[in-house]
């Protein structure tokens, strides 16, 4: 069987290590494997062997992994410990700047990978790591072939920057599909890889084509030019479901649309102002109106995917217009214009929500102004507030909140968020503690800090929908990070 997918966006490059974008997340799982696998059918974390058949801690900071034998890369090479060490260290000890940038926020605790023998590797961390499996299951540490990569350009013995760049155009992995054709930004063609170590892929071929325009995507589905299309806005669901040949599948994605605020902006220094900005947003109304109630409005920065670390009872974020007004009255706010930046089309309903927020702010007495721009203003000291998304890169508060709000993390590094020793200490307890209860407690303390001096407000988990032919059985799986197009065995079938 073959399928054609009409996607709103297609990656400009395919390199799991370098990428962590919402667009990119769609593409890696079909073609690449991690050492530690996960049962994606379940919400709870259930680790399963993947390229590593077994793993165990041999020291508190050293894990040993046995590699599966007989695994082949798409180019026919066998997977060995060298490939694994190469793949892991390209992130753990990154020299290629795009990897450097990517590895810092989530892999900084990982020191190195060491080859023990052809099918055994060890991974050393700096400090005791409570999230071993989680961080070995990351997209960024998917395994790529060493010899092939090094040989792409220049000296075949050395991994030059240009090798990694070339790799992102002609990616090779061990997954059930190989990337048979890749036109950056336009098209990805997967073909079944017969040498796959696991269960055979159900599709001979899957083609993902960029179709940026909503009407075209839906129409292509209807005319049969596509079997599945992505990014269906809630307002369109009714239209598609009314057609007996079509159906939609969707879920509240493991990602928050957020509003970030610059705590260091002269006009926003007073936390009361930011509290008011946050409290005056009626997120349930947004959900009701823009998402037909299908999105999920959180009260804390956790998700049910995080299992025991999900803390639904924590009330960090809420709607309270009266409180917002009174806080504003107490604050130093004098009607200064507060500019809210938003990307024009990137997020479903993003600009609509932003406009609605402006109205809500106005009701509270905040003089908001919307600024729609393609520019990423998150590093700009002038930035006051903007919309963004905070995906769950992996199923842990660290994989969502933590990636952005760690001490010296991207937010602080960009100058719009401050931490102090107290925060760092809370962070330590949350990040490295082996005990779930203690971690949760520490996280609650962090959330309290966030509540008092808010740099962020998660708006909702957007309800993302895919539309497809009625005979296609496909749906986003609960255990995945957002947007993954999973066509592996058991994920897609036809009737």
């Amino acid at each position: 069987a073959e399928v054609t997918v009409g996607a709103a966006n297609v990656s400009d490059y395919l390199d799991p290590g370098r990428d962590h974008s919402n667009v990119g997340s769609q593409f890696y799982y079909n073609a690449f494997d991690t050492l530690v696998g996960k049962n994606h059918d379940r919400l709870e974390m259930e680790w399963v062997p993947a390229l590593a058949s077994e793993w165990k801690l041999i020291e508190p900071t050293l894990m040993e992994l046995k590699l599966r034998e007989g695994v082949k890369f798409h180019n026919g090479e066998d997977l060995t410990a060298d490939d694994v060490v190469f793949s892991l260290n390209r992130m753990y000890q990154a020299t290629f700047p795009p990897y450097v940038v990517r590895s810092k926020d989530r892999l900084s605790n990982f020191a190195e990978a060491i080859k023990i023998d052809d099918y055994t590797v060890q991974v050393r961390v700096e400090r005791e790591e409570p999230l071993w499996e989680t961080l070995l299951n990351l997209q960024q540490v998917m395994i790529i072939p060493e010899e092939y990569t090094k040989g792409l350009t220049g000296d075949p013995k050395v991994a030059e920057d240009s090798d990694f760049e070339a790799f992102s155009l002609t990616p090779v992995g061990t997954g059930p599909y190989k990337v048979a054709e890749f036109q950056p930004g336009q098209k990805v063609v997967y073909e079944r890889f017969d040498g796959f170590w696991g269960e055979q892929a159900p599709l001979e071929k899957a083609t993902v084509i960029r179709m940026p325009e909503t009407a075209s995507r839906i129409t292509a589905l209807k005319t049969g030019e596509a079997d599945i299309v992505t990014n269906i806005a809630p307002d369109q669901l009714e239209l598609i479901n009314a057609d007996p040949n079509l159906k939609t599948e969707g879920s509240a994605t493991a990602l928050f649309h957020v509003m970030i605020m610059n705590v260091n902006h002269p006009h926003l220094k007073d936390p009361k102002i930011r509290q008011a900005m946050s409290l005056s947003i009626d997120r349930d109304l947004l959900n009701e109106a823009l998402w037909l109630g299908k999105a999920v409005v959180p009260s804390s920065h956790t998700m049910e995917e995080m299992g025991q670390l999900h803390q639904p009872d924590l009330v960090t974020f809420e709607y309270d217009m009266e409180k917002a007004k009174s806080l504003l009255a107490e604050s130093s706010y004098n009607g200064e214009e507060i500019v809210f930046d938003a990307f024009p089309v990137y997020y479903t309903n993003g600009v609509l929500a932003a406009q609605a927020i402006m109205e809500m702010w106005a009701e509270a007495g905040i003089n908001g102004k919307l600024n729609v721009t393609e520019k990423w203003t998150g590093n700009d000291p002038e930035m006051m507030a903007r919309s963004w998304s905070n995906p769950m890169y992996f199923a842990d508060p660290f994989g969502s909140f933590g990636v952005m709000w760690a001490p010296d993390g991207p937010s602080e590094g960009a100058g719009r968020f401050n931490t102090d020793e107290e925060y760092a200490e809370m962070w330590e307890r949350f990040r490295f503690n082996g005990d779930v209860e203690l971690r949760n407690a520490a996280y609650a303390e962090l959330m309290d800090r966030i509540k008092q001096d808010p740099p962020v407000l998660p708006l909702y988990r957007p309800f993302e929908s895919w539309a497809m032919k009625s005979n296609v059985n496909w749906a986003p799986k609960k255990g995945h990070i957002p947007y993954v197009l999973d066509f592996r065995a058991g994920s897609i079938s036809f009737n």
Partner: protein
Amino acid sequence: MTDISHSFTLKAIRLPGIGLWKQANWIVRIATLVGLALVVLSVAAPLVAPFDPNDQSLISRLRPPLGFDRYKDGFFLGTDELGRDILSRCTFGLRLTFALALAGACISLLIGGTLGLVAGLAGGHLDDLIMGLVDAQIAIPMTLIALLTLSVFGSSIDIMILVLGIYGWEQFARIIRAEVKKLRQMPFVEAAQAAGAPPLRIAFVHVLPNVVSPIVVQFTLNFSNIVIWESTLSFLGLGVQPPTATLGSMVGTGRDYLPTAPWIVLAPALTILLLTFAVQILGDWLRDHADVRLRSR
């Protein structure tokens, strides 16, 4: 018989209003009336619009116009994706669109007109230089210019006008230059020279007034091009900042609702149609008629 020539060139051009109206056929008359109505509507927008164009009512989004199911009282043309009144947004949108297109066309005219006049009158290297600029402008996609300008200066209304004003200046420059070159060969210009008229007098008294009709025609073309182009910018996400409404931005951002809530797009699209249609017809008619005295030679 008096000595006044009875020839058919004798037309009441000196009384533009009444004379032109009398010569006009029904299409032109309709176009004139539509144009006038739109002008009145846009001037009187605050009086005509039943609501504030930016007032949202999130619970009553996407309501259809009068006469359909789920119609909401008072919102004759329905509501948009944020529950705003389409009629009000249309009237205010028309007002802003009108202003933008008018200002944009004036700026193009000013830039292109000046350069075209200079190129046509001066000739030589200055002419080459200006025509080089025109060529360069033709070769650089306008969308890029818009995109870069808007991202450097932000997309405030002023900048928007500037960007729209850059659109089409080269057309003005070309046309006016060609017209000036033609006029410079006209015996009456030579006659003025022979009378001892200095260059500036020739430019402003003899040449400029005679390029008025091609300018008017180009102006109407440019005007409607700008209206359309502004909506294209909105399509690309480069239009005026929301929540401000222009006809173009309503169409550009509302397009995703065309299958499900077509009225969001229909009302502003029809208004655009009427506006540009009226302006075009008038422009074309002017081309055919107002220029008689030069063209009949």
